[in-house]
């Protein structure tokens, strides 16, 4: 068919328009696809903001409606983008079809003209050329393959080699970590010791005692007030808190002689709350453990009374930080970092982390937290070269800068009634709660869950970890040991009674105190070896304290000092 010049011109124009159209559609689709791949509709900042508002105040129905509406909007926008890409594929095919047809029509009007070179090709030189081309192509491909084999191998570790390297790395980390997790032998300043990490220093602790016949019981004194908090120690002074006849009290005890040096009230300062908020009947008002440094001791109680005394019992400051109200009462213990007292505040109305000036009591910072109240305590850890306060929250595990209160990172954690405090070692953070699971998290903004297991889940007792093992005891009477790095269960053992007190690692041993007051001492290793079983003769839910070869246990009514005779 011989088309007229005019027809060819028109067809040519149409084909050019179709070509441009096809290219534009293709580029738009590619960009659309990239967007679809990269953008998650539910990551919209406005949606996240409104969700955050909802988390702070779940009772607000309008916000809930707004969340639903925005969620729907985000999803619609996403599916609309998908629809656009799908429609684009039809347009793309249509554009290509028009282009092909018009070009075919134009080409069809031209009779193929045979064209040949004036001289016949020289077969010898032609073959020579082909050989050169083929060898060059093979060389290029081989070079690319060799380079790839090295480059790709570098980024994708090979099984055997890397496992050996990993072993070396682990050793290095372990050495570094052991230093970071070392604890002093005298001071036991917070709930579960230094940093609240559950690791105590010193050696020569007795493993056998009997509260009934007095074996290895150095002294025993009644604690004036009721409380579930644990002893904290600095130098020769041991501190406890309790409630006696409606008065909240702090006790300073001579750890050698077993005498109460002074008792101070935490109920009689101006602005003190007299309110006794609802709490678990077993727990009461004096669940949080006090915190001590070489100069002051601070304590907090279930009604939000926060007090600070010097070592002579002189009140330095006191204030009420708001009466916390939650299902089981207030439970978070205190931490001291440098000159700052760290308070994890959990109430149905508000959850936050606060920093107070240790000498004046002035609030230096407050960082609101999202989620629901928990009954766990904060932990002070050194991770990635930075000191951090870690909170096992619901639903996030979060980390804060103890100096400024700034949130360092937050990762999805657990839900439900979260009471066990986190465990940390030099690499991971471990969180657990009953009816949920045990999780090992790689800390940091880019961190995530490393492993998890739901076989053994404590409801009150906190886990403890070193770089090799993670130990925990549960409300069902189980004790278990995990490979801290991989999460494999190395051993488990069922004891007769449940555990509320948190296990402590000290002197290469694992110290587990059950609710009946029996201390089980096992080797802190990957193999279960029970070394001793020592009854206190009194029930206990408080965690033990270790100092200078002596173990301090708070029973239901008495404080015990256990040392070798």
């Amino acid at each position, binding site marked *: 068919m011989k088309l007229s010049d005019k027809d060819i011109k028109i067809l040519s124009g149409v084909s050019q328009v179709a070509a441009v159209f096809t290219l534009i559609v293709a580029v738009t689709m590619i960009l659309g696809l990239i967007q679809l791949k990269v953008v998650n509709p539910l990551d919209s900042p406005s949606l996240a903001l409104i969700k955050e508002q909802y988390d702070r105040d779940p009772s607000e129905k309008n916000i809930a409606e707004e969340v639903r509406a925005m969620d729907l909007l985000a999803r619609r926008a996403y599916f609309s983008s998908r629809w656009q890409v799908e429609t684009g594929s039809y347009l793309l095919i249509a554009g290509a079809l028009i282009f092909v047809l018009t*070009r075919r029509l134009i080409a069809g009007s031209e009779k193929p003209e045979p064209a040949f070179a004036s001289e016949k090709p020289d077969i010898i030189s032609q073959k020579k050329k082909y050989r050169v081309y083929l060898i060059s192509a093979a060389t290029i491909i081989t070079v690319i393959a060799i380079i790839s084999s090295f480059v*790709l191998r570098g980024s994708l570790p090979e099984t055997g080699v890397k496992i050996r390297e990993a072993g070396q790395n682990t050793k290095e980390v372990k050495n570094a970590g052991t230093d970071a997790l070392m604890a002093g032998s005298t001071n036991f300043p917070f709930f579960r010791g230094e940093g609240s990490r559950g690791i105590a220093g010193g050696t020569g602790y007795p493993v056998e005692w009997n509260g009934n016949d007095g074996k290895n019981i150095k002294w025993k004194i009644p604690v004036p007030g009721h409380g579930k908090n644990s002893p904290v120690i600095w130098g020769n002074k041991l501190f406890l808190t309790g409630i006696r006849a409606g008065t909240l009290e702090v006790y300073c005890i001579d750890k050698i002689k077993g005498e109460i040096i002074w008792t101070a009230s935490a109920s009689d300062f101006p602005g003190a709350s007299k309110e006794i908020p609802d709490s678990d009947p077993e727990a009461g008002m004096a669940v949080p453990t006090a915190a001590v440094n070489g100069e002051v001791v601070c304590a907090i109680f279930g009604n939000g009374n926060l007090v600070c005394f010097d070592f002579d019992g002189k009140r330095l400051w006191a204030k009420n930080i708001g009466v916390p109200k939650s299902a089981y009462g207030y439970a978070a213990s205190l931490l001291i970092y440098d000159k700052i007292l760290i308070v994890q505040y959990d109430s149905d109305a508000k959850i936050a982390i606060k920093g107070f000036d240790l000498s004046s009591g002035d609030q230096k910072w407050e960082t609101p937290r999202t989620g629901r109240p928990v009954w766990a305590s904060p932990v002070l850890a050194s991770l990635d070269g930075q000191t951090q306060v870690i909170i096992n929250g619901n639903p996030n595990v979060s980390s804060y800068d103890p100096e400024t209160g700034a949130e360092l990172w937050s990762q999805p954690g657990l839900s439900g009634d979260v009471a066990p405090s986190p465990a940390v070692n030099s690499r991971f953070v471990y969180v657990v709660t009953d009816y949920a699971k045990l999780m090992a998290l790689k800390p940091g903004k880019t961190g995530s869950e490393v492993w998890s297991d739901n076989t053994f889940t404590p409801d009150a007792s906190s886990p403890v970890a070193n770089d090799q093992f993670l130990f925990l005891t549960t409300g069902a009477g189980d004790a278990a040991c995990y490979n801290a790095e991989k999460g494999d269960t190395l051993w488990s053992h069922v004891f007769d009674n449940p555990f509320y007190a948190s296990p402590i690692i000290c002197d290469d041993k694992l110290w587990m105190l059950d609710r009946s007051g029996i201390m089980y001492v096992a080797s802190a290793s990957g193999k279960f070896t029970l070394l001793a079983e020592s009854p206190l003769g009194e029930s206990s839910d408080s965690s033990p304290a270790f100092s200078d070869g002596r173990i301090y246990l708070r029973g239901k009514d008495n404080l015990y000092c256990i040392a070798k005779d």
Partner: protein
Amino acid sequence: MANKIFLFRNNFRVLKKYIPYLLVAVFLIWHSVIFAQERQQQQRFPRPEFESGYQTPTHQLLNQRGPMWEYADVAVLIAALSLTSWFAIKKRSRKGILWMSVFSLAYFGFYRQGCICSVGSVQNISLALFNNNYSVPLSAILFFIIPLIFALLYGRVFCAGVCPLGAIQELTGFRPVRIHKSVEAVLASIPFIYLGLSVLFAATQSQFIICRYDPFVGIFRLNAPFTMIIFGVLLLVAGIFVNRPYCRYLCPYGALQNIFSRFSGKHLTITPAECTNCRLCEECCPYDAILPSDDLKKTEPKEITRKRFILYLVLIPIMTIAGAILLYNLSPALSAVNSNVRLAREIRLEKEKGVPALSKSAAAFKESGKTEEQLFSEESVILGRFRKGTPWVGMFLGLSLGAGLFSMTIRKTRTEYKPDQGKCFSCGKCFEYCPIESKISK
């Protein structure tokens, strides 16, 4: 009136030329409309996640296509191959081959939606050969073998008019641009590499890459990943100028056809009678698949020819061994194609270097309760398979290269212009350039 009839007849004769293209356009539009209607019904809000414990009913899958239909496909394949061979060799009809392309595109492409296809069957066969647990469907075996038998008998008639991938490109390639021979040499080696890797990945139960990266299945089905639809359309547009780009520079089954066709007993010829060496067809093949006549008048000193012959003969085993070593060395990198190996490496990187494993498969693995030891041992098993398979693939590639180079040292007397039996797609484009053909037709 007579004038009008003449004009109509004249126009019809002209239009007849475009009927195959118009038919393809109609197929595509009809197919798109049907598909769009189905799709419209699927455009619903995604299934909600019920918290009330409501159990979503199990998805009902459509019944599989009956085995009789599979045999019908095989029968259609044999019929199409036979007809195309007849058109290419006996009838010498470019038009007939073109119509076969339209039929194959309609049947194997749009109707059967590109599956089953001989190109992809390479993987089924490879998987079956190295895995006792996989039972390869008989139809897949037949789709793999029959076109190769036809290639041995009549050349690449499958590529000419039966393969839907070839057909769609054949119909859109009409403005050929000749590629420089050096570029052609590099690109023409890719199908062999692609073939080797496809067999390796299928045999190690890692991936069916031919199906995954089939550029035209997206057009046949209109529900493939959009990236593949874009790739397919762009390849078609490029194919207007660089004809049959997929067949020439990618198709792994084409590499097999290339090898088998070299030994074909009866291949398409450019001229129906004795070649007059008029050279009119010399530049007409868009695939550079015409070998000129060689009367051996101009020769090299025998010593040089003999030395080169020996050198390239010795190079064959050297290249074969080098290929085996090279590919063996690449096995850890190549094994990353396997999803389990990638997952294991992701998990290991997280454990060793703290790089978070955020992929969906990592999340699924963590939820699955499967232990890391299991995963790592699977990785080792797969890596072991790669270590076994890669030397063979390397040997095949080295041998192909060595044999290809060696064949260039051999010179035979050729009195006529004839197709390069390995490269020739038997498309019949060269027929109309032959003056003898024109003379016989008239």
